């Protein structure tokens, strides 16, 4: 199928883009990498009057370290994040998740901001940002807002961003030396959206006692599922195989994923438990400095 008619607007500055969004609001769709939007246009599932293409604006991409954070511009291509030495060093969880997004041709165009704004419930990036308690920075002609992942993702393909707002960057806390992380997913075929994915981070002190743990799952609900209570149960003790098993069972039992064409709810719960166990085990090994 071919896309429906739209008016194509290609602003060359952020201010110009924000003015266009302020003017056209819900009638406009933002074109970043287009790897989700263009299929929706081709299927005619969306019919915006205007497309506001961000690709001609300079300065919306880039990866930088900033005061204990890793800051990634919204128009940074996923492939650039995947191949960034700074990302591998400061945020290994993100580096591990990147190659699991689509295929290289998709990641060459697909952007970080686009993936977050699209908010697919089975996407990898929202789970990573949720696990790391990252922040999404929004701009509009009226000003700037910073939202935590949990405030930003509000439902199926839905975020707290207003139609006149633009995601301009995401801020992730840099991972400390004693923190290990892992991102694992199961999909029908390599490169497909995850049936279930798990992002885990775990921090150990000198004695090997867990001081912090975070878990976020994708594919098990309308937004990334942050398993805060389950993760907290590991804090204060050593992450023994039994402790990890208990947490994984808890995660599996508390999730209420939907059944769909690809997998039943029970299957997703089961896989979520197995992947949580494997991700925490790997994160603990990495926190101890094994198998980095």
């Amino acid at each position, binding site marked *: *199928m071919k896309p429906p008619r739209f008016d*194509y607007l290609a602003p060359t500055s952020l201010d110009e883009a924000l003015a266009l969004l302020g003017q056209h609001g819900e009638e406009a769709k933002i074109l970043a990498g*287009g790897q989700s939007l263009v299929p929706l246009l*081709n299927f005619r599932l969306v019919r915006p009057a205007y*497309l506001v*293409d961000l690709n001609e604006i300079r300065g919306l991409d880039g990866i930088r370290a900033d005061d204990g954070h890793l800051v990634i511009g919204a128009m940074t291509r996923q492939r650039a994040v995947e191949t960034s030495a700074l990302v591998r060093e400061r945020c290994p969880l993100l580096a591990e998740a990147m190659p699991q997004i689509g295929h290289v*041709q*998709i990641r060459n*165009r697909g952007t970080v901001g686009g993936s977050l704004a699209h908010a697919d419930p089975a996407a990898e990036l929202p789970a990573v940002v949720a696990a790391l308690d990252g922040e999404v920075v929004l701009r509009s002609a009226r000003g700037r807002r910073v939202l935590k992942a949990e405030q930003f993702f509000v439902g199926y393909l839905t975020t707290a961003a207003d139609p006149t707002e633009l995601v301009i960057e995401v801020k992730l806390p840099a991972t400390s030396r004693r923190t290990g992380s892992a991102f694992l997913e199961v999909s029908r075929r390599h*490169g497909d959206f995850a049936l279930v994915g798990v992002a885990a981070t775990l921090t150990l002190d000198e004695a090997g006692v867990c001081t912090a743990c975070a878990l976020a799952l994708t594919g098990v609900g309308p937004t990334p599922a942050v398993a805060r209570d389950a993760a907290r149960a590991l804090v204060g003790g050593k992450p023994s195989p039994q402790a990890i098993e208990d947490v994984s069972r808890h995660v599996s039992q508390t999730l209420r994923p939907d059944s769909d064409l690809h997998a039943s709810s029970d299957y997703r719960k089961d896989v979520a438990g197995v992947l949580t166990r494997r991700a925490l085990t790997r994160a603990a090994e990495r926190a101890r400095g094994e198998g980095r």
Partner: protein
Amino acid sequence: MIERAIRVTVNGRVYERTVEARKTLADFLRDDLELTGTHLGCEHGVCGACTIIVDGAAVRSCLLFAVQVHGRDVQTVEGLADGETLNPLQEAFREHHGLQCGFCTPGFLMTLTCFLRECPDPSDAQIREAISGNLCRCTGYQNIVAAASAAARSLATSPRS
């Protein structure tokens, strides 16, 4: 109709055309430039048949609009051979029976052209990862992997790509 004037370099030649904003790059290449080597399978970014190279990166031409390549450098399958002489990757596909009906072949060739530049000495596992975004429904992937591997060896001894 909303139209824009664009200027784009395709396989080293500069084209200036006026295009409708909603025309995909794949349709522009095929219909406006008559470069029909770029094939369209699914038209929603799944099959990889329409893969081309824009500014050195392999991308799906069904998920880009022609207006977005104004000022850019595009390479399509037509740019690979030197007249009637196949390039080493194309030659390896012929030699190893890496194609049957040929529909998916342009996409595989463009994906692998990019991949072999970045990874000149790949393992079979790396090749399989690299072509995971391209679907073939005839030969299966065994011969395509063999062709890619042979092309890498051939390119290592003849310094052209």
